[in-house]
């Protein structure tokens, strides 16, 4: 379980998060909702270590850890960005296997074997040697998910997973996220889409804008 305690985050004097607390239970889906500008994405960026918090602590399975300084520890957080941020110069397969080889020191065969399992699981079979520009939005998102999963994260985070997709793909995303839940993946989903949050989440956390 991941616990956030008294998290405070300021940007240039503006307080985005103040004394924010939340718990992310294992193997469940936690949705973070709230109006735009409330700090949902900032919260996710703090959890994934892309932003440093001003104060507060992160506790994972009873142990404090600093997401922003987590390079040497076990891989904890995977992120699927709103715009996916696949690497355009690498094929689908290389996008997925790059980090496992460079960071987890897996052999090429090992990394590719694991990647292939995930590729098949997320219905990307046959796309291995394509470049990101040749994929549809939904396929790009699935590649981004596989790329994050290939690093064996304890928690997988999504930033607005429905916003860059056609409305009819919402159902597919729901199915993917619920499918990963069955595999006991702990997931955090930031969304402004209340309906979507209610469809997938075990718990919903609201982030409200702080009145100055």
């Amino acid at each position: 379980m991941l616990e956030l305690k008294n998290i405070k985050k300021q940007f240039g004097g503006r307080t985005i998060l103040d004394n924010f607390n939340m718990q992310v239970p294992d193997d469940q889906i936690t949705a973070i909702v709230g109006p735009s500008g409330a700090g949902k994405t900032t919260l996710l960026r703090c959890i994934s270590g892309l932003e440093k918090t001003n104060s507060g602590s992160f506790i994972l399975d009873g142990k404090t850890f600093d997401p922003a300084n987590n390079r040497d520890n076990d891989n904890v957080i995977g992120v699927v960005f709103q715009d996916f941020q696949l690497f355009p110069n690498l094929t689908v397969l290389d996008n997925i296997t790059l980090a496992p080889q460079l960071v987890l020191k897996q052999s090429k065969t090992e990394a590719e074997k694991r990647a292939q399992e995930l590729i098949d699981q997320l219905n990307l079979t046959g796309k291995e040697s394509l470049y990101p520009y040749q994929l549809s939005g939904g396929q790009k998102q699935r590649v981004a998910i596989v790329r994050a999963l290939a690093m064996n994260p304890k928690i997988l985070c999504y930033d607005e997973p429905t916003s860059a997709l056609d409305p009819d793909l919402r159902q597919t995303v729901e199915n993917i996220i619920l499918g990963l839940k069955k595999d006991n993946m702990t997931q955090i989903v930031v969304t402004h889409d209340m309906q979507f949050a209610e469809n997938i989440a075990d718990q919903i956390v609201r982030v409200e804008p702080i009145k100055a």
Partner: protein
Amino acid sequence: MHYVSEILPSLLSGAWMTIKIFFWTLIASIPLGILASLGLTSRIAPLRWILKFYVWLMRGTPLLLQLIFVFYGLPIIGVIFQRYDAALFAFILNYTAYFAEIFRGGFQAIDQGQYESARVLRLTRGQTLRKIVIPQVIKIVVPSIGNETINLIKDSSLVYVIGLGDLLRAGNVATARDVTLLPLVLVGVIYLLMTAVATFVLRKVEQHYQAWR
């Protein structure tokens, strides 16, 4: 025809000098330009200022002046270069500045999200640059680098001012001696051949990077 075969060896040896200067300048300036562009976008302010000043100086004064300065000027304060070394030194300094600016533009075109994406995958900064950022930057800068490369072939003729025997000088000498236009025409043809080869290679490089977008 007999005359052509008579002067061709001297023209070709001049062309060899041109090619050497071209080759070594390119080999040194491109990596140095990448390093300098990283410095230009660095968070360390003094490093940025120094490199900005350097780029301003190199792009703001004629290459001919820089050549003369290095070969005829520096010995006055005790820094002596051989002709060939002086030429390479001036060319590398000058072209590094141009390449640095081109690469800076390329680096700035890369989405910040690419760095973040690499970061959450826990790639190191070096891995991120090598595997993700630099290939994308190269794709962006190849056309501009190509332009400078073609320029460099022709700019190399400036070395005649410090008495190096390059292609242009060889042609010039033959024309003055034999009072005929032919050597200069041949010089033009040889330059055209060299730029044609460079253009062909650059097109191949561009094609290589067209596999992805």
